[in-house]
């Protein structure tokens, strides 16, 4: 039907409301060029991330999942990102343990002022995902 399109990784980016979400907005209003592969979902805090969200994103076909929050020390809720760091470390380890590629899951700290950093994080993520091809391991089987 359609011509062979070059593979474009689909990223689901969970961004904390206070920092990273604002950071991504800043990247936009500053007209920083970065790939449009990431679909942002705003969450109240990186500490509010349920591992289910990550697994579910992969289940629904995400090639990569990014979680981004405030820098350590800057959490609006004081310690949410400390908890996220610990909890999502476990998720990351478990994904690798069952043989999911390390580069499928990524975390970053991006402040509201770091539009350029957000753009760089997404850019790097896309570049790292590209050689992996589409994510089939955790994707829902429906047929």
């Amino acid at each position, binding site marked *: 039907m359609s011509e062979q399109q070059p593979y474009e990784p689909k990223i689901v980016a969970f961004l904390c409301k206070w920092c990273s979400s604002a950071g991504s907005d800043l990247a936009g209003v500053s007209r920083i060029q970065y790939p449009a592969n990431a679909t942002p979902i705003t969450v109240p805090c990186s500490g509010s991330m349920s*591992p*289910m969200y990550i*697994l*579910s994103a992969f*289940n629904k076909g995400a090639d990569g999942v990014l979680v981004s929050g405030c820098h*350590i020390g800057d959490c609006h809720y004081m*310690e949410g990102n*400390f*908890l996220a*760091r*610990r*909890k999502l*470390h*476990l*998720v*990351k*380890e*478990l*994904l*690798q*343990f*069952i*043989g*999911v*590629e*390390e580069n499928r899951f*990524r*975390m*970053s*700290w991006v402040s509201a002022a770091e539009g350029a950093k957000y753009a760089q*994080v997404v850019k*790097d993520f896309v570049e790292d995902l590209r050689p992996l091809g589409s994510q089939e*391991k*955790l*994707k*829902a*089987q429906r047929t």
Partner: protein
Amino acid sequence: MINIQDIRDTARDLLAKGEVRAVIGWRAGSRGMPAEPVVITAPEQADELVWDPTCYHNLALHLVEDRKFLAHARKTAGAPIGIIAKGCDARAIVVLMQENYFKREDVYIIGVSCEGSGMIAEWKVARQLDGAVPTAAAFAGDEFAFATAAGEKRLPAREVMADRCLECRNPFPKEHNVALGEDKTGRALEAPFAALARFETRSEGERWEFWQRQFDRCIRCFACRSVCPMCYCEECVVDSINIAVAPETTAEEKANRIRWIERSAVKSENITYHMTRAIHLAGRCVDCGECERVCPVNIPLRLLNNKMEREARERFGYEPGASIGGPSLVASFRDDDPGAFIR
């Protein structure tokens, strides 16, 4: 070695004095072995109790059931409930208390030490007995003694013990009201996390190959969840409908419930289930190994839980079931938790 009479006397005494309203323990199964969980409520039932290497069940589960029963019946507990607990059972009880599922004074722990050995793996016994069907099993020092039609057979404990017991870090119930048997903590039958360490020498591709085959086989009987004392949630995210519906639950709530996974026992949904469960057990699983024992299709679930347990220990200095008072693994942090993986 523990004399079964001591266990029975303790239980009988507690029931007779009214110090406990019931004792959770084991009795002989309908075919002799394996033993089965039992809840006794009268002193004269104490003679039913047994203690042998088929007392696999983590009885802390039945404390949870008791709690749920009381909650549904809107009853108060009154006297504490007694429970016979191995090292792993006692650790599970500690986690439950740490999570405020019940209080220390609600439970009377009759600790039993597995001493130098532990529980058997039936498949290992079957392999060694060469067709003979054992009808009873007993501890016998470094050996187990099996009663069969062809007379007593003895097998070295190490050869037929369950992997979980070979790797056990603490066969003595540290938390107890009364403890029977010797404290042999520190014995080394097999290095802790030995199977995990062996598994982790595999490459990423090999690991995926392994796990996808395992998850593909899962039939989603949920025995692993049902048998786990830590899986006490009234409502589980992996259920396709909400089980904890009350008359006051609104239609909107029911209609908007997210189906995180489908009911189909296919690989993708099974992975989501097992991964979610492993994460939810991180810092809570005490490695009693019951999930792995009951799995009808032999999925090595302990590997997942061990992985989380070792991460908790090595990266965060956390040990599940060690103390009632401290914060849980994922509700706490240290300033120097690893963060190099974050950009």
